Structures are given as structure tokens and as C-alpha cells.
């Protein structure tokens, strides 16, 4: 607990607690549409947080994170589809498969000294390669997709039914909301704690200057690999959630490069290399997108939404190149005290 809030101004800590409590209370007030948008926000925040571990903290650019979403979704989805195993059991193979894939790509890339744009391209190449393989793999449905059975959308409100809904992830939307919201908070806490350990400081050192970090005796390969594996596992959790929330899986859409890009836009907009940047960015961009969707329907012009989205992104990066959170944090006076100050 101490290391969670150490150095954080009291008002920031209270503010955070209030926001989280409000988010937990949201389903009492909102249902239907608003709740489904909130689910999307939290889902993207989880993915963003995962990507941020790798890029924001350890400085390794990945443009192929859709690979880990897809692997997580298909690992758990296939187990459910073929053997009826639930999501929480499916999470284990999802972690293993995504982590192993991350380790493989990381090892190949870092071992051969591939960095920056080249490494990013390697991640895209693997994601696309796996997408094409999955498109031709009959056991998981290939390009015609895999569909998970949807059942008990409405559940009885007794403890056993609710527990069952959470355990099987088959139930109304608020069940999914609580799962992904808790996932988001868990990711936040995990990353916060990680960044207070030796590993976190090693990552920052590697991000700032890899040669210097190596000269200081940090095993650069090991810690970069660790960043990729942790990031891949967190992303795979998002993938498992995606599988059970959407119930339809197509390699074409789940491994698509659009998905890899979608999840990192929020992080850059929110503030790369910060804890709350990914969350703020995910909420801001999702609501912006939803607002624009409505406007687009209103005016009935296809393409208006994404065009404005592009303009908004350019505006934010022009005026707040470090992202929204560092600016907002200063505005609210919630800057963290440096441990050495």
C-alpha cells in the first residue's frame, strides 16, 4: 500500500479513488449504450497500458500488438469452443502462448540487434504472418471465423447465478464491465508496482540510453525480453476478454494492423510513458469516436468520423506533443514528487 501511493500528493490519491469508485458505481446509473462505450474505454485502456509497458517504459516500439490480442482470444476461445473450458482457465494458455510468442519475437529481434523502426516492422511482419496462418487453419475456423455460444444474457440476481456469470463470462453487459474495469485497475496497480522495483528503473535506463544501461551492468537483453513478455501477457488478457465479449473471432479483423494502431493512439494522445496516459487517452479517444459517429449519422456523410478523428489527433500532437495527461496533471497540481527531491 505504501509503495502504491508513495510520493503521490494526497489530492491526487483521493481524486483517483473517487474516479475509480464512480466508475464502479456507473452501472447503477447507466445501462445499454453508455455502458457498452465504457466497456470499450476500459478494454482499450488495458491494451494501452500493456503497450505502454513496452514502448513508454522500456522504449521498444511494437506495431504488432494485435498479434497478442489474437493469440489470447483464440487460445481461450478455442478451448471454450472445443472443450467447453471457461475464460479463467483459458487465461492460462493465453498467457503462455502470447508470452512465448513475445519472447520469441523479442529474442529474435534483440539478439540480432534490430532496433527502432526495424523492430517495429518485425512485429508487424509476425502479426501479419500469423494472421495469414490462422486464416488457413481449419481447427479454429480459418477465415470463416469462430463463434462462441451466447447464452444466459439475463441472469437471476442470486449470489450463485452472479458468481456463475462472472466465472463463465456469460451474462449481461455489467458483468463484462466489472471484469474489464477490474482488469484495468489491476493493470494500473501492477504497472505502478513494477515501476517501483528494480526492473522498472532498469527499463527506464534502457529507454533513455541502451549503451549506457549496458555499461552500468544491466542485462539489457533480459530486461527488454521481460518487458515484451509482460506486455504480451497483459495484452492477451485483453484478447481473452475480447473473445468472450464479442463471441465472434475472425483472423482478418482480430490480427489486423488497424487494431495494433488503434490501441497505441490512445497512449500517445494520453501521454506515453505515464501511468494514467493510456487510461485518459483511451477514454478521450473512445468518447471522441462515439461522438463523431453520432455526428456522422446526423449529417449522413461516410468518412466524416475518421477524417475529424485524424484532424483531432494532429491538433493534439501539435499542441500537446507530450500528450494530454502531463498537461492535465500540471493543471490539477497532481504532479508526483520525485523520490530524490
Amino acid at each position, binding site marked *: 500500500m505504501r509503495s502504491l501511493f508513495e510520493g503521490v500528493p494526497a489530492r491526487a490519491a483521493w481524486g483517483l479513488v473517487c474516479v475509480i469508485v464512480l466508475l464502479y458505481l456507473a452501472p447503477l446509473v447507466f445501462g445499454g449504450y453508455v455502458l457498452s462505450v465504457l466497456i470499450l474505454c476500459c478494454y482499450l485502456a488495458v491494451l494501452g497500458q500493456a503497450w505502454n509497458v513496452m*514502448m513508454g517504459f522500456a522504449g521498444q*516500439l511494437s506495431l504488432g500488438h494485435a498479434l497478442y490480442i489474437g493469440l489470447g482470444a483464440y487460445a481461450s476461445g478455442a478451448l471454450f469452443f472445443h472443450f467447453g473450458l471457461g475464460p479463467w482457465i483459458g487465461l492460462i494458455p493465453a498467457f503462455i502462448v502470447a508470452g512465448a510468442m513475445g519472447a520469441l519475437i523479442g529474442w529474435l529481434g534483440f539478439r540480432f540487434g*534490430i532496433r*527502432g523502426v526495424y523492430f517495429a*516492422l*518485425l512485429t508487424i*511482419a509476425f502479426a501479419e*504472418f500469423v494472421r495469414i496462418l490462422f486464416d*488457413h487453419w481449419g481447427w479454429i475456423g480459418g477465415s470463416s471465423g469462430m463463434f462462441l455460444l451466447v447464452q444466459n444474457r439475463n441472469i437471476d440476481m442470486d449470489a450463485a447465478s452472479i458468481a456463475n456469470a462472472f466465472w463463465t463470462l456469460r451474462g449481461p453487459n455489467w458483468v463484462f464491465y466489472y471484469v474489464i474495469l477490474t482488469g484495468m485497475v489491476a493493470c494500473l496497480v501492477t504497472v505502478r508496482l513494477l515501476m517501483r522495483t528494480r526492473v522498472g528503473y532498469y527499463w527506464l535506463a534502457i529507454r533513455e540510453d541502451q549503451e549506457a544501461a549496458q555499461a552500468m551492468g544491466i542485462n539489457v537483453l533480459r530486461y527488454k525480453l521481460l518487458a515484451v513478455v509482460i506486455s504480451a501477457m497483459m495484452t492477451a488478457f485483453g484478447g481473452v476478454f475480447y473473445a468472450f465479449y464479442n463471441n465472434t473471432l475472425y483472423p482478418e479483423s482480430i490480427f489486423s494492423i488497424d487494431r495494433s494502431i488503434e490501441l497505441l493512439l490512445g497512449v500517445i494522445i494520453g501521454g506515453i510513458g505515464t501511468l494514467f496516459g493510456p487510461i485518459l487517452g483511451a477514454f478521450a479517444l473512445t468518447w471522441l469516436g462515439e461522438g463523431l459517429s453520432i455526428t456522422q449519422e446526423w449529417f449522413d456523410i461516410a*468518412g466524416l468520423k475518421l477524417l475529424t478523428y485524424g484532424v483531432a489527433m494532429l491538433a493534439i500532437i501539435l499542441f500537446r506533443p507530450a500528450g494530454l495527461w502531463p498537461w492535465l496533471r500540471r493543471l490539477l497540481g497532481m504532479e508526483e514528487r520525485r523520490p530524490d527531491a
Partner: protein
Amino acid sequence: MLPIEFYFDAAIKGLLTGSVYAMLAVGLSIIFGVMRVVNFAHGEMLVAGMFGAYLVFVTLGLDPILAIPIVALVMFLFGVALQRGLIDRFITAPEHQQFLVLIGVALILTNGLDMIFGPDARNVQVPYAFASFEVGPFFLDNVRVYSAIAALALIALLYLFFNHTLTGKAIRACADNNRGAQVVGLNVSRLYAITFGIGAACAGAAGCLLIMVIDVTPHLGADFTLLAFTIVIIGGLGSMTGALLGGLLIGVSEAMAGILIQPSLKSSFSFGLLILVLLLRPNGLLGKRSS
């Protein structure tokens, strides 16, 4: 077992399409080689070029090959304006910020085109669309032959520009040593604008050539950005001959994969090749060895 002519036929088709791919990739390679900026909107610029050629064909009735000067000039001006107004501020910014800027530009281009032209596929039917040359046992489509010749001629022109004109040499000086170029008094910002313009013009010209072979829709861009990237990495970033070699190689490997295995698996060939090259020769087949 297919007759041997079949493979030759596919290889030749691949070489012809590959030259157009090379034209596209050369633009990306020039921009990265000089400015160290990855143009994530390159495929979208190609699509803009395709629509440009379509527009010229519909309004003026001009053959897409003859439309190249017009489309290339417009794309050049667009590239210069983009560099001057937007990208110049991010030249020294971290990679992820440049990435976001160009993704924003790509989104605006794609959806702007969508708003103007709608999502339907459009094509250009030239009078010689179904004619072909007969060379020995092979039939070569006129369209592919002409576009390959035009692409190779344009690449040769660019080669001459970079090796035999003062501006071209100055741009290469910026690429080799940015600070050195500034010290000897080159106007780096202006040269960058020209470079980005040339890169965009390459994409535009490639668009003119490609519209004769495939239909265009506003959302093709991302795939071609990826294709251009693959080619450039395989050939070697910043090397024009590398981009040419990479383009031909990808063209042939796609055509071969189309007949050897399922056509839907054809891009796995390119990505497999890309992974191999990245691991074994990270600087590309013809790239400079950097320390």
C-alpha cells in the same frame, strides 16, 4: 506439374508488376534515407495518385501514363506543403510523435477520398487494356509492359537527378551528414521539403501506373504502405537500387506464390521473406552496413 512456360509466364508478370511496386518503394526509401522519417501515409498517397489519374482520365480523357506529369506535380506540391506546414516541426521529435502525425495524415487522406469518391471500386479502361504482345511462347499484357517501362524510366530519371544535379547531390549530402550539410550552408529545411515532395510524387506516379492494373477504393492505402515497407526493408532502406531489387523480388514472389500455393497465402511469402531478411541482413540486401 505445370508446364515450365507457366512459371516463366508468372515470373515475367511478377517482374512487370514488381517494377511498379519498386517505383512506389523508391519514394518511401528516399524520404526515410534523407529525413529519417517513416512515411506511414505512403500507401494513402499512392491511392490519392490513383484517384488523381482516374479523375484526369474521366475529365480530360487522358491515358494514365500521360497523366503522370500532372498527378506527380500535384503530389509533389502536396508533399512540399505537408513537409513545410506539418512534418518539419517533428523532424527532431521522437519517432512515436512522427508516427502519430503521419497516421493522422493517412486517416485524413483515406477518409477525405472516401467522402469525395465514395467507397465504390473504380478503374480506368485504356483502349489497349486487353491487347498483349506475343513474345515466343509468352503473352505479355500491353498495360503491364507499358507501366513497367514507365516505372523503370522514372526510376532512371530519379537516379540521374540524385547523381548529376546540384540539388540532388545536396539532398544526398543531407542524408549522409545532416550537420555537415548545414555547416557548408545548405538550406536543409528547403531540401527536406523537396525530398518529401519527390517521395509523394513517386507514390503519385506509381498510382497512375497501378490504376491500369487494379481497381481503386479509398481504403487500399494501409496494405500498400505495408507493401512499400516490406520492399524497402528487403532491399535496404535508403538505397534506390535496393528498392528496385526489392520491388522486383516481391513482385515475382507474389506471382509465384499465386501458382505454387493458394493465392490467399501469397503475402505470407512476402512477410516470411521480410522476417528472414530482418534477421539475417537487417540492413537489407543492398543496404549499407552501419555499425
